[in-house]
């Protein structure tokens, strides 16, 4: 056997293994969720009743789905303007300067911070701050979690958009300038159209990351199983209800938690697929 063939086999096995692992995950999620699916059917997604008390067990995931979407969308709304400005700063206005490299290093550093640190910072600094400016009595809730999530996803939203913005060819930009375009016009008419697939992709990636984030959100959302009524009301997300209740759950409750896990998996898959679709369409 020559080395080419050996390499081919190794690569094939590695890819197959990854396929098997993801397939196995889906399989075990589906199998674990079966009892809950049989019991509640589709009502599971539209019911907001979550009562683990023995004798009147009732499980529905709606308020966790709402909590997850609310916090993630809020995070995206806060993160996008910040991330977009940072990207322009780093990749266009101050491209290749010392300050740009400092900023981009700092942003990259954010990505490396473990989520427990974000959680602690949110718990000890951000939450008391929100209480002290009178936004809420206890500082927990959708807003606080969304804010901390925004900080966490900014590096994901910037890194790819930085690259795509800086990759817009200089000839195009110079051509626009030579026609008398202002800097804003160049950004709007040259850079954005050329970099938009990369920018969109990075925001979708960031959104996907916000959906699944568990630890920091669990520490800040207030973990109440009630439908959130506003930005400052407490709530719960899909991943934090799993993290909270998995340890001591059994029977139908365990199965319902696994079904929530499956739903989260499906949601992230759909979002990734949508992201890929958008990139493909825009690249054409």
């Amino acid at each position: 056997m020559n080395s080419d063939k050996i390499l081919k086999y190794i690569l094939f096995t590695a890819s197959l293994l990854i396929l098997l692992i993801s397939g196995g995950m889906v399989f075990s999620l589906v199998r674990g969720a079966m009892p809950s699916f049989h019991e509640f059917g589709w009502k599971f997604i539209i019911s907001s009743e979550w009562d683990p008390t023995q004798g009147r067990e009732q499980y529905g995931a709606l308020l966790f789905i709402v909590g997850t979407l609310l916090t993630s969308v809020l995070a995206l709304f806060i993160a996008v303007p910040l991330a977009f400005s940072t990207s322009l700063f780093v990749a266009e206005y101050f491209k290749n300067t010392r300050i740009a490299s400092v900023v981009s290093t700092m942003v990259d550093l954010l990505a490396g911070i473990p989520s427990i640190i974000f959680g602690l910072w949110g718990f000890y600094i951000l939450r008391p701050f929100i209480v002290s400016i009178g936004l809420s009595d206890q500082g927990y809730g959708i807003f606080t979690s969304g804010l901390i999530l925004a900080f966490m996803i900014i590096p994901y939203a910037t890194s790819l958009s930085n690259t795509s913005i800086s990759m817009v060819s200089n000839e195009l930009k110079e051509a626009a300038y030579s026609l008398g375009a202002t800097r804003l016009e160049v950004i709007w008419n040259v850079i954005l159209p050329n970099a938009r697939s990369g920018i969109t992709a990075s925001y979708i990636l960031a959104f996907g990351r916000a959906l699944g984030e568990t630890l920091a959100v669990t520490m800040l959302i207030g973990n109440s199983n009630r439908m959130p009524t506003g930005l400052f009301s407490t709530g719960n997300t899909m991943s934090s209800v799993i993290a909270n209740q998995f340890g001591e759950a059994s029977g139908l409750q365990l199965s319902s938690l696994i079904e929530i896990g499956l739903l989260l998996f499906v949601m992230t898959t759909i979002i990734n697929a949508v992201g890929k679709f958008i990139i493909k369409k825009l690249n054409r």
Partner: protein
Amino acid sequence: MKKKSLFLSLVAILATISSSAFGQSLSGAGATFPLPFYNMAFQKYTETTGVKVTYGGIGSGGGIRSLSDKVVDFGASDAFLSDKELAEMPATIVHMPTCSGAVVVAFNLPGIQSINLTSDVLVNILLGKIKNWNDASLKKLNASIKFPDMPITVVYRSDGSGTTNMFTDYLTKVSKEWANKLGSGKTVNWPVGVGAKGNPGVAGTISQTKGSIGYVGSEYSFAQKIPTAYLKNKAGKFIKPSMASISAAGQGTIPADTRVMLTNSDAPYAYPIAGFTWIIIYKEQNYNNRTLAQAEATLKLLNWMLTPDAQKIAPTVNYASLPEAVVKKANAILRTVTYNGKPVLK
């Protein structure tokens, strides 16, 4: 050369593993609540007898599952198994209490170190009916305290927990309304307030949030010296949570199998939210090809846990030791455990 040393160290590791398997070693898993006590006690046991005991604090549910799967010598749980759960186990199991703990009501009111609470007022706060600290019913119980005009923030455990189970068991016993609306369990549907993870999460939230009230395990609150409420017990006395008042809760009537919640105890000086924590084992120790030696080692360890030598460790890590009468009952339970039908302990 490098390979050889790697191989040698591998052999060494394997040797230590197998030697510990041939030497006496026991393993258990379960409740995290008594973990500090078990760690201290088992370490002392290993020092005096040479028997290695490993204990994994994986939660009561996990402890029951591990024993059910027969992967540990003993399990540990904060909640005794219900009749239904007992029937679901592959064989008969017995409960042995090891120590008791309590759930305390902690609060954060600037400048106020202790308050009196009755079960009615407590339930009304937790149900969201009493919303402010200046409520007349609080004033009535605490004539000397000047309560601030401050909204009440209820803080509860967001994770499934034996602490919640004990607390809600008490609330279910003392309030019909609570029993109908929420009931008891490791997780319940709190109508108001915020959830935090673990005792440290709840205690941290309370200490950081003015006007908050919540519940934490006594072992945690004693260690952290958190301001706690005096609760009115069944005998009508306001009782401060302490080692003595928790121990007193175990002096009421206890059934022979010790499967009882000590909540709302009728003992006169008992703190009303207390409970045992248990170690659980199979009544017939010959299963899964277990040797008699292994069964004896397990029982000897559990027997030692009831001796004054082990029990006196409990208060040093903020657990209440078992009252004399309960130790007697636990000893009797251990002597019902058999190997091939013959009692293991004489």
